[in-house]
Every structure is written in structure tokens, then in C-alpha cells.
């Protein structure tokens, strides 16, 4: 893929790769809706130029499910009513999956602090926290 250097990673993911699951909420790195995994680490794709991703491994929300099987995090969000409008959801999913894959034993406090990285305007966070906690347990059990 050849892109203009000034195009951001999130724009290229959405418009050139056609993967519109990653959303743009602010374009200034505050809301976290654009969070993807870059080499396994959650990062804000609006804060990177697409050309910088050359040779790196990217994971977006579309890659969470395996065939028909949902990722435990996705299942947990559904089960615990962790989303309303769904706009912030992909960002939260990738943030949570990325962090828990690296650090499966996060304390509740650490988890809250990490979830405070992203903004949600609908849920008041309560069910997002519940969902992520439940998914953390599932992910550990499945590991």
C-alpha cells in the first residue's frame, strides 16, 4: 500500500484498508476511540502516521473474533451490557485485550486506571468495568 506521508494511521486503516471498526472521536489523542494494538501494545492510531506502521504488526477490532467464535472480551461486553451506542467500544476492547494479554493479573485498581484512559459518553463505565473484569477471568481460564 502506498500512502501520502501526512495521512494518519487511523485514516488509512479505515479508508484504505476498509476496516471501519476503528473509530475517530477526536483526532487529538484524548478519547481513545481509535485504539488499536501495535506490536501488541494499545496505542492511539490517530497519533501515528500510517507510514510509521511500515513493517509493524497491527491488530484491530475486526481481528478479535476467530471465525464465528467471539473473543471472551466481546462476549463479556455483550453479556454485561458494556455498550450502548457502541462508538467507543472497539477502542475499549482493544485497550483491554492488549493490556490483559500482557498483564493478565491486573488488580482492580490498575484495571480501573487503565480503563480511565478512554472516554465513553453513554454507559458511565460501570458495565465496561464489569465486562472487562469478567473477560479477564475468562481469558485467564482459557490460557
Amino acid at each position, binding site marked *: 500500500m502506498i500512502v501520502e506521508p501526512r495521512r494518519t494511521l487511523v485514516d488509512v486503516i479505515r479508508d484504505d484498508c476498509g476496516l471501519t471498526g476503528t473509530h475517530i472521536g477526536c483526532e487529538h489523542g484524548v478519547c481513545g476511540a481509535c485504539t488499536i494494538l501495535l506490536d501488541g501494545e494499545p496505542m492511539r492510531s490517530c497519533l501515528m502516521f500510517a507510514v510509521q506502521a511500515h513493517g509493524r504488526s497491527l491488530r484491530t477490532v475486526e481481528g*478479535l473474533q476467530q471465525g464465528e467464535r467471539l473473543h471472551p472480551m466481546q462476549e463479556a461486553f455483550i453479556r454485561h451490557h458494556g455498550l450502548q451506542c457502541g462508538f467507543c467500544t472497539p477502542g475499549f476492547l482493544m485497550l483491554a485485550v492488549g493490556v490483559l494479554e500482557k498483564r493478565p493479573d491486573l488488580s482492580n485498581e490498575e484495571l480501573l486506571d487503565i480503563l480511565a484512559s478512554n472516554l465513553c459518553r453513554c454507559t458511565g463505565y*460501570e458495565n465496561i468495568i464489569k465486562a472487562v473484569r469478567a473477560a479477564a477471568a475468562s481469558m485467564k481460564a482459557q490460557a
Partner: protein
Amino acid sequence: MSVERLEDLPLVTGHGCFVGDVSFQHQLHMRIVRSPLAHGRLKTIEVAAACALPGVSAVWTANDIADLPPIDFREGPNAKLAPFRQPVLAKDYVRYVGEPIAAVFATDPYVAEDASELVSVDIDELHVVVDAFAPPTQFVGALMTEPTICRQGYGNVTAAFKNAAAVVELDLSIGRHSGVPLETRGAIGRYDAARDVLELHGAAKVPHKNRESLARMLGRSTAGIHLYESNVGGGFGVRGEIYPEDILVLVAAIRLGRPVKWLEDRREHMIAANHSRQQRHRIRAAVDGQGHLLAIDDEFFHDQGAYIRTHGTRVADTACGILPGPYRLPHFQANGHFRLTNKTPAATYRSPGRYETNFVREQVMDAIARKLGLSRVEVRRRNLISPEEMPYERPLVALGDEVVLDSGDYEGLLDKALARCDWAKLEADVLRRRSAGEYVGLGLAMYVEKSGLGPTDGVRINVDTDGVIEVITGGASVGQGFETVIAQVCAEMLGVNYRKVRVVHGRTDRIEHGIGAHATRATVMTANATVVAADKVRAKALNVAAQLLQEDASKLTISNGKVVRADGVGAYISLGDIAHHLQPTSSTRGDRNPGLAAEGWFTTAHMTYPYGVQIALVKIDPGTGAIHIEKMLIAFDVGRAINPALVRGQLVGGFAQGLGGALFEEFQYDDRGQPLSVTLADYLIPTANEVPEVDILLAEDAPSKCNPLGIKGAGEGGVAAVGAVIASAVDDALGGKGLISRIPITPQTIKAIIDNVET
């Protein structure tokens, strides 16, 4: 029942379809050039350089759309307010930073933004008004910046004050803030020349009403314009109104012959999408010696911003009508000065007119308690309207509807709430901790909400030959779980699994009329219409089944999508098969109309009034002035909860927004009208760290008498009284002296109060 949502699967797998995800071949991208100044005479706009940029198709200014009228009011023409409507593109004057001046159309969004910077504008600066309290000045010609005063009242306020045992007087302000959904606005205009249909994609909230308005504005028949809702990333009242950009993409689609896509960025959203909430109330209340309200006289100043948009004066009118809340009030007078300032125009935001007046009224109640040495609980108890007095008519109008408090046990809910949080123990704890030097306080707020705005809604239900049911509604989804609730209601009536029900919404081409989703009405109205239609479908199914099974219809029921005998004996027939028998060519159809389908309408004379109690325990850090919420309770009556998990989600989500308005969020301006809160770094939306755990007490004690399902709706019940209860709690923590006169409350304000008291 709290079933899982039908909406969720595409949303968690990244397959949702928000307007930014929609694209059409050959589309152009629109970028708006916006006024950099808050008030000025627009002299010249140079577009040549922008037009010359490769990739730019056109650059429009007001002259290019001279035939378009200004954006009208949703409720219809209003001669008095008409001169204050917003033009689609500024002509002669600019009145707020962010006002659209020109529109650039280009093949690529980056190029469109490049081109927009090449448009140069010459504006002669004029005097800027940023304070709605300041005396009105000139708007244009002989028109002044106070288009009207919203007045409501009854009784004899003057006499009542004369006879009062005590009077309290407060000057209270609510800061400017708004919904700020996580998805910014967007719209795509597309003209299907083959069918002569103009399409607007990215519609939200009130597609049918907007279709009517747009048709009128553009001189088309409603049959020639259709709106399509995508997934909407949060509405809150702000998203879905008709904005200049919506008009532009439609007109451009026709005139440029290509689909036109527009997405705003966050900074644009903060300065161009509807603001809300900013009011200043100078309120007096008269009471007798026992603390019974005799009269309230409220003079308030509503900061409307630069223009009157689609809601007209609705927010200020509602404020007047709903201010008394759950209390008996023999005499009342409200004068709402509806004032224009050089700021982004304002309109409705979740619980409009109530968030503001709940804060004001509950501060008044606290002040009365203070003045008469009564407890804050007792003063409210003495004034609450009782269930025996209901339906309680107030000679007031809110949301265009007469206020009739239909049902409610206000005192009962108060007692439940007090018991739930063990108020007596909390009070004792607070006293003990205070004597140990802590700044802690309890807050209490009672309120009445409004929902189920009618007058009427209709749905169509059709069962196909596979037994899959489609409910076609004129509703809208802004993320609240509309589809799931309607599916649940339909499924229960038709004896099927709710996952077999597909709910259509936000499509004007699928159903002729619709009420959309606003004023917490979707569940109330559409669900009840669904019941009516489902009832007819059920009756038709049983009628056919009775014939085919050779049974009496009264002995039959539907279970798991099959019509069976109620006693479980004998043959059965699936709904899908019944639909098959009702096909046009079926020999068994008889005289019946084809299709296992029906239409159903629900009409309601009045809105319904859910109500609530909020209690908060806060602690203040005397070193920094920071406010920490230790306990939070929302007790809310919803009449009947179809899906309690969704109701809870609405209340907690609303609470978080209310918290934002109480402590964090504000659209600030400098004295030249330059907006200072244009990013999510300056406009502070609460994060998971700031939102405390919230205890929710859902009460279903007083089902609505206005609809058979008894539903009252919960969309606005969480946010409504948060400003009120937090202010009450912080005030209590600072000694209960009425020192909080403004929300949002900042640590800096708190710190100054604490230090002044100490020094």
C-alpha cells in the same frame, strides 16, 4: 427481563455502520469554512485560491445558495422568532465563532481541508455579547437580542409574598455545556436521479420530522426525500437536529451531481453543534411558618447563543413549566428572558429545562430548610404532592404539553431512598467526621421527569413464511437499546423468542410516520404501538390456526413461535406456516387480507411523569478543593421496566453526564467570544476514574396510567438531578450556608471558600 441486546454483535465485532463508515462511489467531501470571529459584518469572501486547488469541485458562499431559506423551527413557522433563525451560510453578518461561512467540495477530505484554509474572509469586527444577563443590544435593524420572554404562571404571586412568613432569595447559574457524544456529526447527501429521490444518510433522532422540514425547505415533496439512519454514536438531544451542514450536503448532491459526504472534526463539533444548559436564575420563594411553599417567583436569563435553532424557545418554556417539580405550589411566576449572545446556538440536551431547574429549585428547598431551621428532608416532605391528589394538574405547559402529574408516590420513594442509604446513619457519620475535621456533606434532591411525549405513534408488523417477524417502526436508535426493547415487547405478545424479531427504525422509506427517539418517548410510544399491532397479528394468527387446526381460537395460544392448544394437546402450526397460508395465492386464505401482518397505533393524551430521588455523600479535600463522591444513590420510578439492565444503563450513563455538568464540563468563552473549550483536553468529560459507583433503586410502584404497559421511560432520569444533588452535598460539606451558587463547581471555588472561612 434483562436480555442481551440485539444491537451488540455488529458493534463489538467492528461491523457497525456509523455515518463515517458509509461511502458512495464518486463522492465529494465537504469541508466548512467557519467564522473566526464572534460578531462582525461579513464583507468579502475570496474563494478563487481555494477553487484553483486541484481536487476542488466547488466552493460555495451564501450567494450560491441565495434561494435557500434559513433553517426553520421543528414545530412549524413562528413569525415572532423567525428573524432570528440561522441561515445555512452566513450572509452579511457572522454571529458566533464557528458559524459556517463557506463550503468547500473536493475529491478528498484532506484536500478539502487544505482548500478551506485558502478561503480568505474579510470581517469587520463588531461589539461582542457574551453575557445573557447584560441588557439586550441590537441584533439587526430594529431587532434586539431578546427575541421574547417566556412567561408562565398562575395565582397571585405578589399577594402570596406579602403574606409570607419567610422569603428566600437566590441567584443561581448553570454553566454552558452539552451532550458532546463520542461520535461527531456527519451527513451524506445523495441524489438518486433515476427515482428522483434525494437521500440523507447519517440521520438521527427524528428522521420523519426532519424529512418534513427538509422537504419544506428544499421545495420537494416528502415522497421525494428520504432519510437513512446509520448507527449513531450517542445522541443526547444534540445529534439529529437539522444543521446547516445537512442542508448543504443535500443541495450539493443535486447541484454537483455527486454524493456529498461531510464529517466534522472534534473542534468543529465543540463550536458548531448545539450547546445547552446556560441559564441564570434569580429566584424568590415565599413560605409559611411551617415551610410550606406559598409562591415562587423566578426571573431567569437563558443564554441561547447566536441564533434560534430548530427548537425555538422550547428549553426555556420547559424550564418555566417544570420548575415546581414534585411540590405543591399555590402561586407561581416565571419570566424567562430568552437572550441571544455571540456564542454557539443552544438547544436541547438530555433533560432540558429540568437539569437546570432541578438545581435551582432544590437549592431553594435547601435554603428554606436553612431559614426555618428544618431538616432538608422534612421541608421536602411537607411540600410533596401526595398520590391521592393525582392526577395533579398544574396550569403550566412543558414540552408543549399541559403538565398533569399522572401518578406517583413521591413520599414513598423518598422513604425508600432514605432507608436504602440509611440516611440517619449517614447523617450521624457526617457529624462525627466533621468534628474530626473532615469536610463531608450529604446532598438530597427530588425531581419529576417527563417522558412519553405523544401524541401518537404507529408500527407495522409482518411475519414472514420462515416465522421471522419484522417490526417496522418510525423510531430511532441513538444507542439506547431501542431494537431490543421493541423486540422484547413484540416477542412477548407473539409468543416467540425475541431474537426472531427484526426491528426496523430510522428509515423514512419503510414507514410513512414516526416519532423518532427524543424526550424519552421511544419505549413509551413505540412499544405501546407495538403491543396494539402485535395483538392484531396474534388475533389473526389464532383465527387462521383455529380454522386449520379445527379448534376454537379461545383454546389456542402461541408458544415458541407455534400456535398450540393451551393445554398442550394436539396438533400445532408455526407462525411461518400461517404466514404461508396467508399469502396472496393461498387457497386457504379465504376473505382475509394477505399477510400475517397488521398496523397498530397508540395515542396518548398526555406525557407521563416518572420521578426520582437522588442522594450523594461527598468529601472535599481542603488542600486542593477537589470533590470526591463517596456514595451515590439514584432512586427512580419507571412505572414498569421492560429490560431492567437497559434501564439501569440509562440511569448510570445519564448520571455520568450529570456529573460532568456538576463538576467538570463547561464551554468557556473569552470576552471576545472566542471559545476556549474546543478539545477534549479542555472540555472535561468524566472518565472511569471520576465516576463513582452508583446505587440504583428502580421502583415500579406507580405504573403510568397513560399507557397499557405502564411504562414511564428512563432515558433522562439519571442526569436530571445530578447538578442539584452534588451542589446540595458540596454546600452541606461547606457548612450548609448556601455558598454554592453555580455549577460546575470547581476545586478552585471550593478552595477559596474554605480558605476564606479559615482566614
